[in-house]
C-alpha cells in the first residue's frame, strides 16, 4: 500500500478571485453560499446545496442533463455562473413533487416508461415543464423541439415525447 505523499508547504497564492457570498433563490428558498466566482450554478446546486437531482453529463453545454429553470426558462446550469443567479428564481427537479404528490409530467414519465437509466430524466422533465407552462397543447414536434437539447443515450426519446403529450392532456384536464 502506498504511503502518504509528503507535500511541500503551500507557498503559492491560490489563483483567481477568492470566495464571495452569493444569495440564491432555489425552489422558493433563499440560500446564502460562499463560492469562487467561477463556480457554476450546477456545482453550486450539487455541492453547496446538496441538490444532486441536477446532473452533470458534460459540464460544457452539450448534453442537457443539468437543465434547470431560470425564471421559468430552461437553462444549462453548467453554463450559468452561480453569481449570475442572484435575484432570479431557480427551479430544480426536487421542487416538482408537491406534498408527496408527483407532478403530472413525472407521473407520465413513469407510466410511459420514458426513461431507462434515469440520468437525463430530471433535465428532460424540466425542459418539458418549461414548454407546458407556455404551451399547454403542444404537438409532438413542439415537444421534440423542447427536448432537442437534452440527450438520452439509452434512447428513451419516443416515450419521452409520449409522456410529454400525456402530461399535457392531464394538466389541461386539471386546470
Amino acid at each position, binding site marked *: *500500500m*502506498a*504511503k*502518504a*505523499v509528503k*507535500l*511541500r*508547504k*503551500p*507557498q*503559492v497564492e*491560490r*489563483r483567481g478571485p477568492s470566495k464571495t457570498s452569493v444569495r440564491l433563490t432555489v425552489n422558493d428558498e433563499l440560500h446564502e453560499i460562499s463560492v*469562487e466566482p*467561477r*463556480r457554476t450554478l450546477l456545482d453550486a446546486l450539487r455541492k453547496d446545496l446538496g*441538490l*444532486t*437531482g*441536477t*446532473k*452533470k*453529463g*458534460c*459540464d*460544457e453545454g452539450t*448534453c442537457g*442533463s443539468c437543465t434547470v429553470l431560470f425564471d421559468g426558462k430552461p437553462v444549462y446550469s453548467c453554463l450559468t455562473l452561480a453569481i449570475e443567479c442572484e435575484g432570479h428564481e431557480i427551479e*430544480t*427537479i*426536487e421542487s*416538482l*413533487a408537491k406534498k408527496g404528490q*408527483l407532478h403530472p409530467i*413525472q407521473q407520465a*414519465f*413513469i407510466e410511459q*416508461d420514458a*426513461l*431507462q*437509466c*434515469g*440520468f*437525463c*430524466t*430530471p433535465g428532460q422533465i424540466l425542459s418539458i415543464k418549461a414548454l407546458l407552462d407556455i404551451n399547454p397543447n403542444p404537438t409532438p414536434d413542439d415537444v*421534440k423541439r423542447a*427536448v*432537442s437539447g437534452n*440527450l*438520452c*443515450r*439509452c*434512447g*428513451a*426519446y*419516443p*416515450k*419521452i*415525447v409520449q409522456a410529454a403529450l400525456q402530461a399535457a392532456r392531464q394538466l389541461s384536464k386539471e386546470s
Partner: protein
Amino acid sequence: MPRVVKTQVEFEGRFYDEYVVIEGEDVPPWSAQQEFSVVGQPQTRIDGVERVTGAAKFTHDIQLPGMLYGKILRCPHPHARIKNINTKEAERLPGVRAILHSANIPKIPWRMGLTLLFDQTLRYAGEEVACVIADEEEICEDARELIEVEYEVLPFVLDPLKALEPKAPKVHESGNLFHNEPEIYERGDIQKGFSSADVTIEGTFRTQTALHNCMETHGSVALWEGDALTIWDSTQHIFGVRDVVAQALGLPKHKIRVIKQYMGGGFGSKNSAGKYTVMAALAAKMTGRPVKIILDRHEENLAAGNRPASIQTLKIGAKRDGRLTAIYHKSVVNVGAYATWGGGTTGPTRRLYACPNMKTEDYSVFTHLGPYSAFRAPGYVEGTFALESMMDELAKKLRIDPLELRLRNYAESDPATGWPYTTKGLRQAYHRGAELIDWQGREAFKRKYSTHTKKIGFGMASQIWGGSGGPPAYALVKINPDGTAVVVTGTQDIGTGTKTALAQIAAEALHFPISSVKVELGDTQLGVYSPLSAGSMTLASVGPAVRVASEEARKQLLDVGAQTLEVPREELEIEQGEFLNRRTRERTPVKAIFEKLENFMIIGRGARGPNPEKKSVNTFGAQFAQVEVDTETGRVTVQKIVAVHESGRVINPLTITSQLEGGIIQGVGFALTERRLVDERTGLVLNASLETYKVPTVQDVPEIVAEMVNLPDPEVNNLGVKGVGEPPIIPTAAAIANAVADALGSRIYDLPLTLDRVLTTRELP
C-alpha cells in the same frame, strides 16, 4: 446439499466451461400455457419515483463529509515515455492534498500486465500520467496545469494494417497482433465450397470507432474505515470491481465493499474497475479522507473504451437457387493500446446461416489509440453489417428477394456446433416484420413516394446473439414480519429494469402483490453473488434464482402458517399476499402469523441451475428499415424501423419495448452519424465532446414499430427467458445500409453512411 456442476457458459458470443455450485433443487419451468397475474403484464418501474424526482443517487451524487476530489493528468502524445515529472509548483497550491504518479506509487500491474496503474511508457493520447487530489475540483484543475512533465516522444502507429507491417512501431514488446496470432475457425472444405458455387461475390467493409458516451461518466468514490474499504462505482459489475481492486491493492476481497445503486448508462464500458477506482482508493488511504474521482466528458471519450473500428473482407459462394456453399470472412480490428480479449467480428457469419463450408479469421491489432471495450453486442453489430450487406448483394445478383434468400439459408440447427436450438423464433420474426412493414408492397410504395431527388429504399437484416445467461447466480427471498417480501441479489440494475422484472418474478412465485415486494441489489455486502450486468445475461441468470428462492420462501411460509394457524397444510394457500383457507375461504394477513412468532424471518434461497447440455441457446430477430435518401444533399432519413425479436418469454412488455427502442436508436447513430475522428498526423482524437461526436437526438429518431415473438424457452431456465439488452442494436445499421443501397441502386461499404459517401457512391442516372 450443494451440488457442483460443470456447465457451459456463454458470454458476449464466447463459450466457457465452468464449475458452479448449485444450492437446492431447481423448479420445473413455467409452461407455455401458464397463466400469470404479474409476469408478462406491463409493469411500471418499482423505482420509477426515485428516477423522476432526482432522489435516485448515482455514483456522481455520492458526497461524504471531508471528501476530496481527484483529477487525472493525461498524456498529450500517442506514444511517449516519461523522462521526468515535476510536481513542485502544483504541490504548493493551497488545497492540494496529494499527487499520485509513477515515481511515488508502487508498480501495480494493469490490463493483464500490459501496463501499470502509473506506467512510464504511455501508449495513447489520453493515458493516465498523474492524479491530483485536492479539496475542490477547481483546485485539482489548477494544480494539474502546474505539473511539468518531460516526455520522450516516440514513433506511433494508428492504422491496424500498418501496425501489422514488420517495421511498425511496437505498441507492446510482445508485438502488435493480439495473442500473436489470428483467431481462426474452419468448418467443411472452403475450397470445395467455392468451386461448387454458381456465383461468388466479394466485398470489403469498414466500420468506424464508436464511443459509448454514457450520460453518467465513469467514476468512483472511495472511503476507508480502518482497514475496510468502501467503493461507490458507476459499474455494471460490483463483484468485478471488488476483485480488481482487491488484486491491485493486495487486499482480501472481504475487506472491500462495492456499491452501485443507480448508474447513468454503461453499454459495456463499465464491466470492470477503472484506473480511477484504484487511484481513488489509494488516494483515500494516503490522505485519510474519502476521495471522489469522476471523469469529464473528454476523458470519457479518450480513455473509457470504444467499439473498435474494423476492416472486414467477405467472400460468399452460392448456388443459383441461393443456397450458400462457402463463406470466407477476414476481419481486422483496431483494438487500440490494450485488450483483455480479442475484438472479433465474425461471430454472426459462423452462426447465422446454414453454410457447410467456412473459414473465418479475426485479427485484433494493437495501435496507439484509446483501448476498446465491450460496446453493446461487441463484434456482432459490425459483423452483421458486413454479412447482411453481402447477403443483399447476393440476393441482387441472383435476383432473389432478400428475405427469401435468408429463408432459403435458414439454419434449423446451430451450424457451428450441430446442436439443436432450445427455441428459435427467427422465422416468426421475419414473417411478422415483413407483414408490419409491408415488405411485399415495398416496390409500389417506392414508386409512389420517390421523386427525382428523394429516393425511398427498403432493407432488412437478421439478428443472432447469445443471451442464455447462466450460473453462478444466487438469490435470497426474505419475508418480513410485516408481511412484505425482499428479494436480495448481488446483481445491478443498469437502467434496463432488472429490479422491476425481479420483483415481478418474486411476486408471481410468492403469490404476493408486487407492491409488497422490495428488491435489494447493487451492493457486494449483501453477500449474494450475481454476475455482471452485460452480455444480455442479467435476467436469464438472476431471474431463475429469484424464482427458486421465492418458491422456497412460499413453501416455508405455508409450513409456518399452517402450524401457527392450526389448519392442515394442504388446506392453506397464499393469494394476493394473504393466507387463504381453501375450505373455509377465510383470509388471514401474512403478518398475523408473525405477531405470534416474535421476530422470525423466513428466508428462501435460490440458485441458477445449469444450462441445457448440447443445446444451443440463442436470441434472434429481424429488423426492416425504410429510408429516404436525398440524392442532392446526400442526407439519409430513416423513416421507419420495424423490429421483431425473439428472446424467450417476455417478463415485462413495458420495459422490453424501451430496450428495443433504445438499441435501435443507438443503431441509427452507428449507421448514420457516430464516428470518432483521429488526426492522422498527431494521433489526437478530434471529437471527444458531445458537440462534435454526434449521438442521436430526439430529432433523429424514426418511427419505430417494435414487437417481441413471445416464445417461452422450455429448456434454458425455469422462467423460459433469454436476454434482450444487446439484440436490438445488432441488425439496425445493416438494415439501414441495405435500405440505402436499395434506394441508391449501389452500395456504401463503409459506416457511417455520411453525406459525402452517399454523394460519391450513388450511381448517376
